[in-house]
């Protein structure tokens, strides 16, 4: 049974695990997937890619941003049997660009980056968008778990 007390204007309730076992009867308003105000995940309701998705980290905005967008767009819209197989040139171009900035785009086998990092895993600004993550059909590496800022507090904000 929960226990409750009032401290002036502030109410305090203590609950055991059993107290909270029954499902909540609080009502939440259903979300409108086409709400223009909402931040969307990687894919917008129109099907387009949201280049501003925090989940991408700085990939679309850095020095190789244009190459990244080109390659990733190609992949996203590719209808080949092996998705993206028609985009090899663009990915190569992106890779060449990224190799010129090893500080920003460390290679897979390198140790932790020296400075800031374009990749989402340590991006200080990236958000994990709550539910829309799942709808992305992007290569795994791009959607590595992200970090919004210095602490785990923001990891799923």
């Amino acid at each position, binding site marked *: 049974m929960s226990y409750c007390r009032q401290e002036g204007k502030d109410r305090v309730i203590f609950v055991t695990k059993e107290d909270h076992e*029954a499902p909540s009867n609080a009502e939440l308003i259903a979300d409108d997937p086409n709400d223009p105000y909402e931040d969307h995940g990687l894919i917008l309701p129109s099907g387009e890619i949201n280049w501003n998705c925090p989940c991408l980290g700085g990939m679309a905005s850095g020095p190789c941003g244009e190459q990244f967008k080109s390659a990733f767009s190609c992949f996203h819209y590719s209808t080949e049997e092996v998705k993206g197989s028609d985009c090899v040139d663009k990915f190569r171009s992106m890779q060449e660009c990224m190799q010129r900035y090893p500080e920003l785009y460390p290679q897979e086998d390198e140790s932790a980056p020296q400075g800031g990092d374009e990749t989402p895993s*340590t991006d200080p600004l990236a958000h994990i968008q709550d539910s829309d993550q799942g709808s992305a059909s992007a290569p795994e590496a791009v959607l590595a778990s992200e970090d919004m*800022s210095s602490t785990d507090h923001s990891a*799923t904000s």
Partner: protein
Amino acid sequence: MLTEPAFILKSMLKVQMSWPQHISLKVVRSHSMEDLFFCISAAMEAPVDALPEIPAHAPYLLIGGGTASFAAARSIRARDPGARVLIVSDESDLPYMRPPLSKELWFSDDPNVTDTLRFKQWNGKERSIYFQPPSFYVSPQELPRVENGGVAVLTGKKVVHVDVRGNKVRLNDDSEISYDKCLVATGGTPRNLQVIERAGEEVQKRTTLFRKIEDFRSLEKISREVKSVTIIGGGFLGSELACAMGRRCKSSLEVIQIFPEKGNMGKVLPEYLSNWTTEKVTKEGVNVMTEAVVKNVSYQDGKVVIKLKDGRVVKTDHIVAAVGLEPNVELAKSAGLEVDSDFGGYRVNAELQARANIWVAGDAACFYDIRLGRRRVEHHDHAVVSGRLAGENMTGANKPYWHQSMFWSDLGPDVGYEAIGIVDSSLPTVGVFAKATAKDTPKAATEQSGTGIRSESETEAVASSEVTPVAAAPREPQQGEEYGKGVIFYLRDKVVVGIILWNVFNRMPIARKIIKDGEEHADLNEVAKLFNIHED
């Protein structure tokens, strides 16, 4: 953008090759032509020296080099292909994040931390406080001509005048830069106490107003050299610094914290929780003096002497004043921007726009929040969210502030919370708590994921690790175990406008949803169930 006249011109010029090389064109002070002339000179491949150090025009000009500006720059680059973004910062550092300056950097074991400014993140990986290393940016000089655009940072320069009708700014060195879109993200300056300002040079040179990298470096050095530091202020910054220094310098430094409220975070947390937090801060080695109002400060016999109104006296070696932030609104007059008299800062609409082609984001923005009303927010995540939104709107999005920003604080290993919305202790609150077990601290949360922030010795046990009894009848909570973890709702006219997640992590999306709905809930315990506070 492909329709940009400069782009078309550049392509045309490449065909025409009859121009002599190295033409240096006089810069014409008419901004619509600015871009064209620069592209001409770029197409002629003028040597780099011929290009001015400070570009005469920037399509996107961001005033201020902090978090909001950086977030806007990134947003603009994501949405406008090839965008050229110029950040003008009066600091000498490239954009960096502030939270680690009062938290993680103090916990680092690296003796070179003041040089490297690197810290360990939640996932165990190290990173720098700088958002990006220098190689990410292009030079201001090259910004107008670099092929895919980029972000340039002009450091050590201050914008002193904005000509809104002429769409241009003037810097402190008298150079002028015209723009198409402008962001004001000037942040704020730490407030000082009048008693300190009146106290003379000897006191003032022993006082730190903490905000920037140089303040961290200076205070870190001081904390190793003096015997006693006193922090004035009981809010986020003051409490975090007190805990950080108390913890880092336990045996060698006396850390005192004084403030007028009854407990730490007294303006944010309901009284019972503020009291509980104060106890925890004390356990971090801080001598907390509550209900302390400073009457005067002087320098006597080699000590800084702080006299309180109630007669108490504090003798210390150094003061850190953490008594709030004054938003930087010096540009209001020249730019004809409205300043808000209730909250301070530049007044902007829900889309963060102040005037034609001018947006404001971050600490300096007093904006209209459709759900919660007009407000001004001084947190890191707000700088990120508002900076990103301003960048979107500068590239044509026209979206209002909608995605609520959050904030967090860690006061030692046992007290960590995340919060969202309006969290003001003057509002009525409803707090729903579970009894905490050893598993429910920020330290434990990271350890469980296999990525401990710092190692702890085995003898450093966490208190109150009893197993929750299966009881049908209510049980009076025991001392010290009361507010281990839970969720606190802040109400305004029966609607939840703010939520604190107390030692409960990874639930922010639910909290955000409840605020967004803005519904009246008859039983907040039912709402609390949504958070599953008993689980990890």
